[in-house]
C-alpha cells in the first residue's frame, strides 16, 4: 500500500516536472523572441512581456510553490542564456513582484477579475519592481518618474498577454495534469 502510494506520487510528480520544464523552456524561448520584436520605439524600455504568458498560466494551473519555481527558473535560465548580471537583477525583481501581485489578485478575486485584468496588473508591477531595483542600484529615485509611461505601455501589453492566456487556458484545461497515467 505504502509502496503504491509512493509510486503514484512519483508518477504525478514526473508528469508535473515535465510540464513545468516545458513551460520554463517556452518562457525562455518567448523572452528570446521578444528581444527580436522592437516595441520600444514609443516608450524606451517597454517590452511585450510575453514571458508573462507563462507566469500567469502557471499561476492558474499550479500551486503556489510550483508556479513560484517556474518564475524563478525562468528568470535565472533566461539570464544565463541571454543577459548579464544586472539584467538578471532587473528581470528577477520584476518577475518576483509581479508574480506575488498576480497570485494574490487571483487568490482574492478569481471570479471578479479576468485574465486580462490580472495580466495588466502583473505587467505594471513588473515594471514597478524593475524600476525600484534600478533606482536602488543607481541610488537615485529620479527614474521612478518614468513609471507613468511604462504603466500606460503595460496596459497595452498586459491586454495582449491577458487575451493570449485566456485562449491558452481554454485549451490547457482539457488536459488533466494531475491525472495518473
Amino acid at each position: 500500500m505504502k509502496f503504491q502510494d509512493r509510486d503514484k506520487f512519483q508518477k504525478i510528480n514526473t508528469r508535473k516536472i515535465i510540464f513545468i520544464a516545458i513551460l520554463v523552456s517556452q518562457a525562455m524561448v518567448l523572452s528570446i523572441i521578444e528581444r527580436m520584436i522592437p516595441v520600444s520605439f514609443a516608450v524606451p524600455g517597454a517590452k511585450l512581456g510575453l514571458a508573462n504568458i507563462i507566469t500567469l498560466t502557471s499561476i492558474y494551473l499550479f500551486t503556489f510553490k510550483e508556479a513560484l519555481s517556474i518564475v524563478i527558473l525562468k528568470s535565472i535560465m533566461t539570464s544565463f542564456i541571454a543577459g548579464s548580471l544586472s539584467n538578471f537583477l532587473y528581470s528577477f525583481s520584476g518577475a518576483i513582484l509581479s508574480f506575488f501581485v498576480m497570485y494574490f489578485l487571483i487568490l482574492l478575486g478569481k471570479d471578479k477579475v479576468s485574465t486580462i485584468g490580472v495580466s495588466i496588473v502583473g505587467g505594471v508591477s513588473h515594471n514597478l519592481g524593475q524600476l525600484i531595483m534600478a533606482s536602488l542600484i543607481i541610488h537615485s529615485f529620479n527614474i521612478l518618474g518614468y513609471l507613468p509611461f511604462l504603466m500606460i505601455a503595460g496596459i497595452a501589453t498586459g491586454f495582449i498577454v491577458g487575451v493570449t492566456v485566456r485562449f491558452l487556458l481554454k485549451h490547457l484545461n482539457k488536459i488533466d495534469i494531475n491525472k495518473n497515467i
Partner: protein
Amino acid sequence: MKKYDWLIIIGIILISGLLFGVNQLKLSQQKRDSKELIAEITVKGQLYKQVVLTKEKQEFTIRTDIGKNTVSIHDNGIEVIESDCHDHICEKMGFIQKPGDIIVCLPNKIFIKIVGNSEGDIDEVSR
C-alpha cells in the same frame, strides 16, 4: 472582460496620470531652485564684472581709482560688506537676492544689480 478589469485599467491610468503630474511639478520646482542668478557690477557706468550668485560663500574686492568695496556672495545673494566711502550706504543696503534688486555706492560709482538668468521672469518685467 469583467467589471473589475475596467476598474483596474481606469485605476492604472489615473495613477499614472497622477504620478506624471506630481513628477512634472517636482521637475519644475527643481528647475526653479536650480535657477542661478547673475549680478552685474558696474563701475562708472561700465560693466566691471558679472558674477554668478552661488550658495557657497565667496568674497572679492572691487578696486577702482576712487576706492575699494568688498563684496560677499552667499546663499544665492550678494551684499557689500566693506566700503571705504564716507557714507557707507552701500553697506546699509544689506543683502539682496531677488532679480531687479540693486545696491549702489554713489561715492565710488559702483552699481550692483541682480539680473535673472536667460529665462525672463515676470517680476523682472513688471519692475
